């Protein structure tokens, strides 16, 4: 009864319901300038990123033109000139791509479990005071110059890692990836991967730590209240919530590993041949290729190196964007 009355009331009055007012504010001149300036700077990151892509692609396009797909698949890097003085160079980064992927995989396999252990330790095990110190140490590790990692890797890690490589070879050489054409283990992808593992630990740890810390407290408490042990809580609540974030962190680490230059150059024996044997002292990495050849490069070789830089840029950009996307999704779901 009441409802019907109400409705008729509404219908009768409907003509009188005013249209919503459009509120217009005229920002003052100072605000207009402020917003304009800040917005244009906000766009600068996009501009820079686009410019990087355009400039490297523009310089490298010649190489893509002359080498075609073989630039990605071929293993040769020969700068040659025929008798007429025309360039018949053949450049290919195939071996470098294989090497980049191989050492990055080693880095992930070694670095990610350590980072997860570290992140769990910092989030759930370390006493508060120790935690602040250790977090600083991990952050400091991220600020170590990469040339320092290279020097340390060469003089400290390599002698040890050689010995480990020999042990692994001795007992596990029947697994294809641990085999080697000859027992030469110096400056292998394995060693480069170990150095990279240490270098990606800070980023993977800090992303994982951030994700773990976002685990909703009420779920953690619910698990504890059900009589769970700390590990039980981590398995039942923390991992299901944070696993995709850790994957994202690992991929950010992968992006770092792809682009690392000086440290890898120092500890890796760069060879222009495909090598899947991690322990064998021959490998490749696009970034190190660039600084290896840069010094004496000229003409079409420089262009080829810029093209290699473009490929590296695209690879890291894709991996990074994907990784950031995953991490953001996870962090958002915690809020």
């Amino acid at each position: 009864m009441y409802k019907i009355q109400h409705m008729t009331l509404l219908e009768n009055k409907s003509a009188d319901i005013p249209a919503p007012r459009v509120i217009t504010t005229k920002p003052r001149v100072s605000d207009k300038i402020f917003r304009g300036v800040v917005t244009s700077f906000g766009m600068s990151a996009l501009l820079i990123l686009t410019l990087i892509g355009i400039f490297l692609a523009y310089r490298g396009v010649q190489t893509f033109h002359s080498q075609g797909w073989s630039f990605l698949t071929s293993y040769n890097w020969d700068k040659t000139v025929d008798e007429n003085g025309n360039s018949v160079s053949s450049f290919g980064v195939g071996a470098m791509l294989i090497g980049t992927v191989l050492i990055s995989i080693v880095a992930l396999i070694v670095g990610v479990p350590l980072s997860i252990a570290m992140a769990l330790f910092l989030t759930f095990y370390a006493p508060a005071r120790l935690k602040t110190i250790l977090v600083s140490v991990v952050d400091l590790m991220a600020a170590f110059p990469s040339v320092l990692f290279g020097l340390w890797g060469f003089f400290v890690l390599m002698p040890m890692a050689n010995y480990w490589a020999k042990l692994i070879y001795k007992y596990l050489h029947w697994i294809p990836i641990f085999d080697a054409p000859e027992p030469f283990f110096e400056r292998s992808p394995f060693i480069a991967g170990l150095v990279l593992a240490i270098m990606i630990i800070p980023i993977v740890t800090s992303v994982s730590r951030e994700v773990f810390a976002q685990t909703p407290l009420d779920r953690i408490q619910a698990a504890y209240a059900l009589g769970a042990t700390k590990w039980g809580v981590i398995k039942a609540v923390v991992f299901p919530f944070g696993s995709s974030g850790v994957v994202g962190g690992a991929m950010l680490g992968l992006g770092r590993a792809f682009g690392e230059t000086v440290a890898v150059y120092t500890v890796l024996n760069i060879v222009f041949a495909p090598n899947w044997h991690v322990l064998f002292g021959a490998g490749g990495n696009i970034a190190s290729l660039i600084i290896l050849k840069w010094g004496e490069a000229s003409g079409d070789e420089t262009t080829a190196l810029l093209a290699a830089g473009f490929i590296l840029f695209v690879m890291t950009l894709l991996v990074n964007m994907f990784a950031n996307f995953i991490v953001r999704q996870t962090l958002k779901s915690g809020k």
Partner: protein
Amino acid sequence: MNNAASSLADVSKQRATQKSPGSAPMGTGLEARGVHAWFGSHLALEDVSLDFAAGTVTALIGPSGCGKSTFIRTINRMHEFIPTAAMAGEVLLDGKDVYAPGTDVTKIRLQIGMVFQKPNPFPSMTIGENVLSGIKLAQLKVDNKEELLEECLVRAGLWNEVKDRLGAHAGGLSGGQQQRLCIARSLAVQPKVLLMDEPCSALDPGSTLRIEETISELSKSMTIIIVTHNMQQAARVSDYTAFFLSEGGPGRMIEVGPTTEIFTRPRDIKTENYVSGRFG
């Protein structure tokens, strides 16, 4: 309604004659002895001694910040998750101090279950997995999981609503259903005591009523301690009521007694002011 209230009052009277609060323990049940709680250097709760006889429902009432929640969190040792927390006193479960050195805290929490303010089912698990999650977490052995699952859901008053979708994710349930799922989850490990920290504060009146029915049902077989802001709720579900108050300083327990007495003829003027709605 009237009938239920009077029967509840009868029950409390009956129990009150068996065992009055503050008296010596009967050998089974839960006692708090001189419990204090600190956050850093701030004393949040001062000297609370309370007995909870087996099979009773005790409501803790009082304004915000009076230490009710802190108190129940000291009982199942959830208090210690706050990094700066400290406590003093004893909490005795079946005569044994739950804070005694060498105590396995996970065993304590298995015997003293807890339901939180906000429903918090595990989103990565299905309804069925949620109910049995305690079994898995504490690595208990259960012969017939299906039977236990059904029993817990029936006791929590949720079985009829979810029996056809035990494999569905818990996120699809309504708030009230989720809270009853959380109750079922706590029941699966067969606790002797169930702590409820304002279990209905995030729920609508209909769901609240269902949970209250569940509480009455459960009280036949276990000891329940419920923190609530809602005085009507305390009157409806509890046998005993304890009134907590903080007058600027740490929270204290002002008065405890059979629920009917606290609400009809409290001894302390502060309790009377609170239950009659003059403040709080």
